[in-house]
Structure formats: structure tokens, C-alpha cells
């Protein structure tokens, strides 16, 4: 029962009210200069990209199995059951592995602060927890950004594609990408044009590292036993050699005496 956002680029009019609502929600400044910036940054968690008469939103995809949360050594990033991927700045030590690992390049860093935080859209976790839609979905005047149950939104997206042949690219971006995301996108233009990679794997990325990490509990006792065994053999060999040498010496001495 996780919540999600469905953004339909064909319904978007590029009014950027979602940007403003997002800034207010996250207590970030929003000026004309910032409105003109068409990229996500540490002070702008979502942005509307404009290409001719086509629009596309960028925001954190809030993956079902987020790479960022999986790589965070201190668990500062968490996938909540309700959908949002949240961030706890008090836990964060600033290793920035989340930024390196995110397949969408979403997490941004406050490079110019002395004690920087990672910054990204967290899908308004407080609002979602109290049953309200995200700030961007609530303000959207055309319903281009819609908030709801992920399963319902998937059905609706499929229906829109089915009922409007030719209007959409036949692809719900985020349905399967990296195991699925809590942000689903529909578009009339290829997603690549707006920087959304087409070739992303459908398998959740965290499995790539977990396959290796999950072997450690077996490796440690096995390795320990193996190395201990090798030591025992070499050590024993040395003991035997030493015993043989002393035995030989004793024999020699005895023989000498007899002679």
C-alpha cells in the first residue's frame, strides 16, 4: 500500500507552481532566478524542464528499492513503507556514496556550507503520513502531477496510454526501472530527451552489491578455518622437523659414546 506520484507530461502547462510549492514546503528560497534554473540542485528539489512546447518534471524518483538507502553506511536514508525515501541529516556523516550510487543523479550536496547536508526531494513524508498529497501534487492546476496509491496510478497510466493511441510514448517510466519507483512518468516525447536514461536495468541495484556482501558471513569462518588449518600444518611440520633433529642429535651422541 505505498503511495506514488504520476506525472503526465502531456497535461503539464509548465507553470512551475510545483516548484514554488516544493520550495515553500521545504523552506527553500524561490525567486525568479531560481525559477529559471532548469536543474535540480541543493536549493531546488524539483524542476520543470521546457523544450519547445513540451515539458518534463525532474524530482527524486523515490525508488522502491533505492540505491541511496542501500549504500548509506549509517542508514541516514530510508525507504518508508508509505513510499517516500527520507533523509536524516543528524545521522549523515557526509561520505556522499548516495550521490555516487543514485542512478538518476538526484541527491545534491551543500558544497558551500561548512557542515553540509545531502539535499533531495523526500516526497513530503510528513504530508503523506497524515494522508495528504505532496505539495507539488496538491498545487498542480491541471492534474499533471497526481498523488495516489501506486497500483491505482499504474492502472490509470496504462489506461491513458491505451485510450490515447499516438499521444504517449508506450512506456511508463518508473514502472520497472531499477525495480520500480514511486514516481511514475508519462510522456509524449522520448524520455531520453529530458535526461531520463532508457537503458536502466529492471533489477533493483542494491542486489548487485548485496550478492557480494551476503557471502561475508560464510567467508569469515571458512577463511578463518582455512588459514588456521594452513598454520596448523606448517607449524606441525616445523615441530616434527625440530623433534627429528634433536632425535638425530641424541642418536649421534649415543652412537659416539658406544663407539
Amino acid at each position: 500500500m505505498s503511495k506514488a506520484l504520476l506525472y503526465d507530461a502531456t497535461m503539464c502547462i509548465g507553470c512551475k507552481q510545483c516548484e514554488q510549492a516544493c520550495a515553500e514546503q521545504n523552506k527553500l528560497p524561490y525567486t525568479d532566478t531560481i525559477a529559471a534554473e532548469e536543474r535540480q540542485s541543493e536549493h531546488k528539489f524539483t524542476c520543470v524542464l521546457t523544450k519547445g512546447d513540451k515539458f518534463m518534471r525532474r524530482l527524486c524518483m523515490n525508488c522502491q528499492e533505492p540505491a541511496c538507502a542501500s549504500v548509506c553506511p549509517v542508514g541516514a536514508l530510508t525507504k518508508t513503507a508509505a513510499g517516500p525515501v527520507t533523509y536524516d541529516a543528524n545521522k549523515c556523516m557526509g561520505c556522499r556514496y548516495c550521490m555516487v550510487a543514485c542512478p538518476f543523479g538526484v541527491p545534491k550536496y551543500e558544497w558551500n556550507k561548512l557542515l553540509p547536508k545531502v539535499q533531495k526531494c523526500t516526497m513530503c513524508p510528513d504530508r503523506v503520513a497524515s494522508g495528504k498529497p505532496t505539495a507539488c501534487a496538491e498545487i498542480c492546476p491541471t492534474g499533471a502531477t497526481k498523488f495516489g496509491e501506486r497500483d491505482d496510478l499504474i492502472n490509470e497510466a496504462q489506461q491513458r496510454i491505451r485510450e490515447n493511441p499516438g499521444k504517449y510514448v508506450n512506456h511508463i517510466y518508473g514502472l520497472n526501472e531499477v525495480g520500480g519507483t514511486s514516481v511514475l512518468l508519462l510522456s509524449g516525447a522520448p524520455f531520453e530527451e529530458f535526461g531520463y536514461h532508457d537503458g536502466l536495468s529492471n533489477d533493483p541495484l542494491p542486489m548487485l552489491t548485496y550478492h557480494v556482501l551476503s557471502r561475508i558471513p560464510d567467508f569469515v569462518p571458512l577463511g578463518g578455518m582455512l588459514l588456521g588449518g594452513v598454520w596448523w600444518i606448517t607449524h606441525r611440520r616445523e615441530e616434527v622437523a625440530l623433534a627429528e633433529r634433536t632425535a638425530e642429535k641424541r642418536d649421534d651422541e649415543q652412537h659416539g659414546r658406544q663407539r
Partner: protein
Amino acid sequence: MKMKLTFWKLVFLALMAAGFYATVVRFTRGLGASTNLNDQFPWGIWISFDVLCGVMLAAGGFTLTAAVHIFHIKRLESIVRPTVLTAFLGYLLVCVALMYDLGKPYNIWHPLIMRNPHSVMFEVAYCVMLYTTVLALEFSPIVLERFNLQRPIKVIRGILIPLVICGVILSTLHQSSLGTLYLIMPEKLHPLWYSPLLPVFFFISAIAVGLAMTIFESSLSSKHFGRQLELPILQELGRVLVVVLSVYGILRFEDLFHRDVLKLMLRPGYEMYLFWLEVTLAVILPLLLLSQRKLRTSPGGLYLAAVSVVLGFITNRMNVSITGMESSAGSHYIPRWTELAVTGAIIASGFALFGLAVKYLPIFPEEEHRPKPRVEREPSVPGVPVLGHAGD
């Protein structure tokens, strides 16, 4: 000799001064002012060189302690102490570098209590922490000997074998895990470097570099601390190095073949040149050098091969962490001078601390010292070198 010494002292002072300035910038004005890092390039030279290469260069510690204490190759015993010293200093300096790189360095202890076992970084953090402790314990007899504290030496001697085994396991884990770090970004890292075998490559190359660093360091020590060169030992290390490099080379190319990216090796471009630089220095040149009997048995040939291996695998780590990430990031990363200054100061302090340790602690077996001019040496505490003999 005296001229040379003052020249290097000047270099050292210059590096430390630049490093000090960069440190002030880093800790008063933040990462943005002191580095060329940005949202496209969140990891720079402090991770690539200071951490990835630093850990790799310190791999001699576990390689040699395993060879001597587990596999009982006693001929190598006389170089265990300088190698453990290098490893210990290496890991300490990696920790120092991390304090620069972390956005909130005062939270560096958080992985202790905020555990995320799915995170490779968490595993690396734990292993590095534990292994640094192991190295401190492995190193401690040298200090204890200096002050003639026999009781604690006995304790360490008693637990030495389990300690060495722990060290080898922890090293295996985190040396390979530094490669595992990059497994989660198949779409970001260039296919010449992204491979499911990254952890294996990182581990095998750590062994190669561990051996090469031991040769390198023994050669330097013989020059600068007036020691005899343990040529037979270095020849033996050279022979093992040939095997390790061959295994690595075959695996590396086989992997490229299986992933069907051999053609990328010939596609002209920035990545191709740096790939060939890496492979030539790390594998091809040293194997060519070491295949000549004359070079394989001479101090000069061994030294050259070792330096080539070290430089080659440094290039490899930089390629994985910087070169291979540039095309997906869509930007080039060139470190700011303050980043280089910090790295330079860290390397310089590594050399200086090694020199100090050699001067004041029984690092090298005493009988092999030629009398040295000027430097007055304390008579070393008599007794067997603990690290070498314990556990027998």
C-alpha cells in the same frame, strides 16, 4: 648525502606548509572552497588516491604477515617489521584523509552504532577500523620492545596467530570491498572498468601491490637507512609477483572478452589511452621486465618492475574512480590545488613518520645495520624480534 638530506627536508617543509594552508581552508570554508568536487563529481582525489590507493599501498602488511606466520616462509621474516610499519602508517593516514573528505567528519564514528549491513561502505568502515586495530597490535611489540615491557609482549605473542588470521580476513574483505563499492553503478562506470569481478580485481591487485611495495620499500630503505639489500628475499617476492600479475592479467582480459568490450580497448579516446597506460604499467611492462632472468635477479630490475606495478595500479584505482566516471558525469574532474596539497602533505608525513620510526624503534633487525654516521643509535633491546618468532 648532507645536501640531499636538506633538499628533501625543504621539500617536506614546503609540502607541509601547503598542506597546512589547505587544511585551514578545508575546515574553515568547507568542501566547496577547498575542492573541485560538485554534484556531478562527488568523489575526488581524496577518495581516489588517499583512500583507494592508500589502502591498496598498505596491502603489504597482510600479504607478508600471512606469508611469514601462516605459511611459515621464514626467509621473509626480516622484512615483516618495516612492512607492518608501512601498513600501520598507511591505514592511519587513510583515516586522516577521510577526516578531510567526510562532509561531517565528527560523525565518523556513526557506523559503530548506526548499522546498515546492506552498505558496502559500512562494511569497509568496520573492516578498516578493525584492521587498523589489528595493525596497531601487530605493531605494538616493536614499541613495547623499545621500552623493554616484557609482559605485554608475551600477551601479544600469545594471540599473534589469531591476530594475523583476523588481519588477513579483514584485509581480504575490505580490499575487495573497495571494488564492490562500484558494483552498484553499472550505468555510470565505463565498461572498460565496470565488471562483476571488480572485487576480485581489487583483491588480486592489492596482493600484487603489497609485494611490489615491499620490494620498493626495501630498496629505498637500503639506500636511505644504510642497510644491506636483502636481495634473495626480493627475488623471491619478484617471482611471486610474476604469478600474481599473470593471474590478474589473464582474468582482466578474459573478463573484457566475456563482457564483449574488447573493442573498446581500441576506440580512440581519453578512456582508451588511460586504460592502456594502466595495463602497460601494471601488467605488461613488469611482466616483460621480470621475464628476463638478468633483470629478475638484479636489484635495479626488481626495483623498476615494482615501481611500475605500483604506478600501474594507482592508475587503475584512479581510472575506476575518476576516468571511468567522467563520461556518465558529463564533466571532467581536475583536483583543485588545495586537494593536491592535502594529499601531498599526507604522503610527506607518511615518509617522515616512517623515517622517525626507523630512527627511534627497532624496525630493522639490528645485526644488519651498518654503522651510520652522525645519527646516534640507542642500543636496541636484545632479544628475538617478536613479530618474527612468536607463535613458533
